[in-house]
């Protein structure tokens, strides 16, 4: 395949996905209301992810704190373990890791479910029944992902800091008062909001990508597997790439508004 054809193919794919995204978003406010579907998907994306998020965030908090403690011990700055971990978790680790985990778990399931519906003609059945498939199948998934991701990230942040507290205060005997005081002095609401905002954007992207892949599945069981694989891999790569650009944009915003970065 020549580079030109490859590039054309990729550009067309992106165009299709953008249209899919726009039409899905546009269909959300249309009647009938899909609140039931939104809650159903929130239960799947949100509630059912809480366990795995708690587990991974606890150990992320422990491991990260331990590494930072070891580094800061050399320069005798162990009092800064708490705020450093808090900044890293709320602004970067929390949104990125939460999104990667949920994209793999719920995004993969979304692509597989929609792909199976496509190859089993269930989406065609909805179409011929006069149901707007984007409004019924895709819109609620996007809304649910965008709403759930900040909530899951908040849980990640909190549990990771519990892990950090446990390591710093209970395992390496840092002073509990200083630990909390330093965090309170450093962390501002905007640091937490920054992470929550990022996670909502990541949620939007993985929901659109995985839904698009699943919705446009062709070729039976093999196609479902490929759609799931492509959906999850593309989402994960994009979350990491997008994180850099979002971080840069937020820094620019802070500079423009005169806030410390």
């Amino acid at each position, binding site marked *: 395949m020549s580079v030109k054809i490859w590039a054309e193919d990729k550009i067309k794919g992106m165009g299709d996905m953008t249209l899919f995204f726009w039409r899905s978003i546009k269909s959300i406010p249309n009647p*009938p209301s899909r609140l039931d579907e939104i809650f159903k998907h929130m239960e799947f994306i949100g509630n059912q992810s809480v366990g795995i998020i708690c587990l991974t965030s606890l150990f992320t908090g422990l491991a990260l704190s331990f590494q930072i403690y070891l580094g800061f011990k050399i320069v005798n700055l162990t009092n800064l373990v708490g705020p450093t971990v808090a900044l890293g978790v709320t602004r970067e680790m929390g949104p990125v890791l939460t999104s990667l985990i949920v994209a793999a778990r719920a995004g993969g399931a979304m692509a597989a479910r929609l792909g199976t519906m496509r190859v*089993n*003609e*269930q989406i*065609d*059945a909805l*179409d*011929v*029944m*006069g*149901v*707007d498939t984007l409004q019924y199948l895709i819109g609620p998934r996007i809304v649910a992902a965008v709403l759930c991701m900040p909530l899951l990230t908040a849980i990640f942040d909190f549990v990771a800091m519990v892990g950090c507290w446990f390591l710093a205060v209970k395992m390496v005997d840092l002073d509990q008062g200083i630990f909390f005081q330093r965090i309170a002095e450093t962390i501002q609401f905007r640091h937490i909001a920054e992470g929550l905002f990022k996670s909502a954007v990541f949620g939007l992207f993985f929901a659109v990508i995985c839904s698009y892949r699943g919705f446009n599945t062709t070729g039976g069981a093999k196609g479902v597997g490929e759609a799931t694989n492509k959906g999850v891999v593309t989402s994960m790569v994009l979350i990491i790439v997008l994180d850099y650009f979002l971080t840069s944009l937020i820094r620019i915003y802070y500079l423009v508004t005169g806030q410390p970065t």
Partner: protein
Amino acid sequence: MDDKSIDSSLEKTSNRSNKIEAGNAIEMKNVQKTFDGKEFVLKGIDLNVRKGSLTAIIGFSGTGKSVMLKHILGLFRPTSGEINILGKDVVKMEKDDLTKFRQRFGVLFQSAALFDDMTVLENVCFPLFEHRRDYSHDKVLKIAEEKLVQVGLEKKHYQKLPSQISGGMQKRTGLARALALDPEILIYDEPTTGLDPILTEMVDNLILDTHRHREGLTSIMVSHDLAAAFRIADFVAMLDGGKVLLYGTPEDFYRSEIELVKRFVSKGMKTS
């Protein structure tokens, strides 16, 4: 095909329905379709489906039957040509209007296409909950149960998931769901492909019963099962190379002098 077989087949066709009305439910004029701009899948389909008739669409694999069906359902738009359904030009219809218009169709898919996370009853209720929002919950349940009774599905299966019932029951459920909104046009997409002979006969009889007992219903069946098509259909359209090769009654097919039709009929009846 020998004379005896022809006579026997003609005898069978006398079972056909007698409810055909004046006028056409579907009119396709010179419908052409290409996906890549080069090769045409439909090369000028001309077909009129009479109101109240049961029409079978037959043909070898890859002749454009499914593509034609998707044009009737408005899932594909033709590259050129006209499609009028129930007096409406579906080619020029906006997406939202088309979505509403599709409520006048019922479709039984080859795989039944039941929603696997819903029970049998919920599957049949689904189109009613979607499009009859003014109906009470009890009324929707009552209608759904009526449809399930009509297709002969026993009450003990209503709360089962599609994966917990047999293929025949899935077809019955699919048909009940297709009938839920009292459609004016009912489409069967290869309803008996992959079924055993007993189940095939059951589905054929179900199609015939459904067609006969519903006033004003126009039925279209895409099928590979020639014997069934000739037994139950009022009219048959044979597609070849993206065009309608022959459209007529089953008798017209038996008497046709077109070589391809003779070959198809002869082979089809032998296999059946």
